[in-house]
């Protein structure tokens, strides 16, 4: 399956996202967590010790969205709508007519890439 031009290769995204989550872990447990454990400064009204894990949740969401889009693009699904909106809530959604070659109209929406 051909990758869409201008996107980072899926593999790079996967490695990047995995690295992000490893770093995420290291900054919340000992010993890395010690650096982010204090109450000050206050950010957005929250003590830093609260703000830090909160911002990681938001960044974690971003990382997962990125990974999802990269995979969808790689499979030939247009990533336009994002994970929340790209399909009807209950419907079995096909590739929406604009899928990549070999996917459109296939009853199986998922085709794992070789080399995973």
């Amino acid at each position, binding site marked *: 399956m051909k990758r869409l031009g201008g996107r980072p290769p899926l593999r790079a995204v996967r490695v990047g996202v995995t690295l992000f*989550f490893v770093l995420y872990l290291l900054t*919340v447990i000992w010993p890395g*967590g010690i650096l982010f454990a204090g*109450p000050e400064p206050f950010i957005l009204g929250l003590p830093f*010790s609260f703000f830090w*894990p909160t911002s990681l949740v938001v960044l974690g969401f971003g990382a997962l969205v990125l990974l999802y889009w990269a995979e969808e693009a790689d499979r030939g699904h247009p990533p336009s709508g994002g994970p*929340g909106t790209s399909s009807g809530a209950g419907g079995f*959604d096909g590739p929406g007519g604009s899928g990549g070659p070999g996917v459109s109209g296939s009853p199986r929406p*998922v085709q794992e890439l070789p080399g995973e």
Partner: protein
Amino acid sequence: MSDTLVITGIIAVYLAVTLWVGLRGGRQSSASVTGYVAGDRQFGLLVMYFVTGATIFSAFAFLGGPGWAYSRGAAAFYILSYAVLGIAPWYALGPRAARVGRRMGFVTQAQLLVGRFPSRELSALVALLSVIAFIPYITLQMRGAGIVIEAVTGGLVPLWAGAAVAYGIVLIYVLVGGVAAVGWTNTLQGIFMLTLAWILGIYLPWSLHGGVEPMFREILAERPELLAVPGLTGGGEPWGWGAYSSAILVSAVGLCMWPHLFMKAFTAKDERTIRRTVVLMPTFTLFLIPVFLIGFAGVMVVEGLDQPDFILPHLILSAELPILLVGLFCAGALSASMSTGDALLHATASVAVEDGIRPYRPLSEGAQRALMRVLVVVSGAVAYLFALDEDQSLVVLLLSSYGIIAQLAPPIVAALYWRRATTAGAVAGLVAGSVVTLSFFLRPELSPWGIHEGVLGLVVHLPVLVGVSLATRPQPAEHAHRFVAAAAGKEEDAPAAR
């Protein structure tokens, strides 16, 4: 008194609606065992999203979260950290498990394990561990429901009676509807929880302290120890980094190993649905923010509450809130308890029958369904007995369960990824890990740096799994290769459906 009546009325209406939705959803699933356990693999994104969210965030988050923030401060942040770290691996694991499950007709976690590591004993062991872990988890949910009802009625309906009524209703719809009912009621309850948490999390700090930052400034001036990770223990002593870090680790490893969550891989409509659910999960996690704000809002206002888990209902009832909102809140908190409780009861019975009994004794479909229903009632009753005695905090109850459930992670990962893993290795690792976990659970004072017993179990589990696997004869290459290939979605290599 009329206020109590209004609130009780709202709760009654809420419970009735829940029951109706549950019964209605139940009619749509087929009468087969697959239908009862796996909801005919027909859940779409909306239902999946709320099922998963409502299942993860339970009375534990809704009552235990504020309870911890109130009494133990920053210690509660471990929940915020593990929730996303725990769900992220599911992005890779979930679709793999789903593929193998679909291909080979698995409906439980142990079936997947045994599909790779053929051993009845392994199946029974997984069933046993799951049930042991489930009971305190169900107990927690029942106590949660009881706490809400007792607090709301000012003690008029005590914890035992409140828990009994709420779980009587849960029992009815679980018995009638199976997992489809669970899905539909969780959708309803998930929406409830999200909305109310945010309303209250913003309203309470404003009404009590004039805003979020002023509230934290006040706490910083008076009780600075509450705002520095890792916070305090239940007794008010400083909590250790070892305990805090290992709580995150064990919960993150264990999160998607919970059979009721894991089995969602087998109920999902397709793999994209699973991936999307994972991607959206952090949006559910953000709901812990208002939950903690509610707990912190109580710190300077409520002095030394005996049972910190009561802080949320306590604040709600003492703040001058519109009565309708109070009623809706109570319904929301109840829903948090019930939506997890139903999934847990259902999963406990499914696992006990499918994995604990069926490998030893073939049962007809009808007998299986009947037995499952009996076990739903039995496990509910056992958990209820513990709910009456237990005076542990809700979070502590759950954290103990996680030690056991985390032991399921190594064999699952090995089954899906590691061709060289052997049955002997999987069984030996699981036994060693569980024994170590249970030993340190019983003698926590022996644990170095207060590290969670589940992490110590994993430290022993992993080398045993790897060592014994390497020391025993490899599985027939074809078997291991086919299984891992099926998980990876390579069709041509896949074994035929069972």
